């Protein structure tokens, strides 16, 4: 028998390894609550991380003063042009919104518009310290009414959902994380209900489960389908970049460029009052419409 089998250090190592593997297994699925130790660690870091973020914002202020005047003038002109264009499209959208409201009231359809939700603004104070998990820490926690699985967005689109929460902070798992899957549909064709998931590294997404006959092409906008029960319907996720055929030939997959720039996230909004439509209610909707 080899000598190391009699070695106490060897057996301590084996026991530590087994205990750690059990711990990995226990924490691999979503947990309702984080442990006291994790909470203390997170809340200890939070004020320090907030200071660094504030300092960074403060230091980036003077730098912007030195931006060329001409560059600023060009940017103002561009923005004015964009405002004029957006004003016009706003008028059309307002009209459409009123029409939709009228039609929905006729068929007793559940209002799913984003503007009806309560939004809580939060600052990003830290990011995941490694490349394996894509998450951010925000400066709002259980004390501010944040709960697990609340959707997180910006004005550009979907960011992710709340994972673990401490008293003053919350960890938001980004949609680029490989553990997050979002029910998605294509805004143009509406015929596809796929799933968008994070890729292992980088800031790209992958849309899977697209039937081979689906009309999908680059630059199509991908939005939430509302079927994942965590995210409201109609939030922008990204834009199709490339479509590829899966080896089985029955399905397509697509690389999606997110509308949100995750490496430059500074502020986000948490939807605090989204209650997903249950499957039973969803099933009743066509019947209600017919009535």
């Amino acid at each position, binding site marked *: 028998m080899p000598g190391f089998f009699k070695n106490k250090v060897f057996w301590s190592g084996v026991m530590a390894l087994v205990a750690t*593997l059990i711990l990995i297994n*226990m924490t691999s699925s979503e947990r309702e609550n984080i442990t006291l130790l994790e909470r203390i*660690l997170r809340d200890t870091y939070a004020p*320090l991380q907030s200071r660094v973020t504030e300092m960074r914002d403060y230091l980036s202020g003077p730098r912007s003063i030195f931006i060329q005047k001409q560059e600023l003038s060009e940017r103002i002109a561009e923005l004015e042009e964009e405002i004029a264009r957006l004003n016009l499209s706003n008028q059309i959208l307002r009209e459409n919104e009123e029409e939709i409201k009228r039609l929905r009231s006729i068929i007793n359809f559940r209002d799913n518009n984003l503007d009806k939700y309560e939004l809580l603004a939060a600052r990003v104070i830290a990011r995941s*310290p490694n*490349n*394996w998990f894509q998450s951010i820490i925000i400066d709002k926690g259980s004390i501010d009414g944040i709960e697990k699985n609340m959707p997180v967005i910006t004005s550009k689109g979907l960011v992710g959902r709340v994972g673990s929460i401490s008293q003053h902070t919350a960890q938001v798992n980004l949609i680029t994380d490989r553990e997050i899957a979002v029910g998605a549909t294509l805004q143009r064709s509406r015929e596809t209900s796929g799933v968008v998931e994070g890729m292992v*590294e*980088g800031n790209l997404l992958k849309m899977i489960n697209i039937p081979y006959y689906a009309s999908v092409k680059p630059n199509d906008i991908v939005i939430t389908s509302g079927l994942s029960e965590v995210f409201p319907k109609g939030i922008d996720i990204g834009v199709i970049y490339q479509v590829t055929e899966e080896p089985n030939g029955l399905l397509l997959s697509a690389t999606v460029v997110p509308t949100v720039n995750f490496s430059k996230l500074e502020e986000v909004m948490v939807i605090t009052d989204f209650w997903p439509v249950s499957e039973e209610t969803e099933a009743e909707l066509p019947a209600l419409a017919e009535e």
Partner: protein
Amino acid sequence: MCYLIHFLLPFLAVFLQSTVFGFYSIKGTLPDLVLVFVICFSIVNGAGKGTVYGFLCGMLEDLYLGRFIGINAIAKALTGYITGRLQKGFFRENIIVGATAVALGTLLNAAVLLVLSRIAFPSFHIDEQFVQGVLYQFAYNIILAAPLYGWYYRSSRIGLLKLPGEK
């Protein structure tokens, strides 16, 4: 004092990675400062102590992340053990030795994490993005390793980081 600094180093590393380096990542890839410290520690203090230190540092990172707790602890303990074993027969005062150990340690750590991820998360797969991420981190870690190893080695010989009983 040296124990306190060794205790605070991984806390500082996680703090820097989640803030400063988070804002200055290379194409979304962060360095692994905790790993760099673990490797520096292992080269100077040997495989046994390196394994324990790697385990504790990895566990701290896991507790902060809150998911798959223990995955980084095992990966960093194993990396600490192997780099601690390999240091025998090399001139440890040479920065190139430190940088090479960090380079090999980064690849080893990624390989262990990959194996553990495959066990814990069966649908995990390697793609171009994954390889690219490891390579960026490899480069980032080497850049940080040269000055950090030089500082660590000097401090552990004649400075604040010298462990009691070390020659």
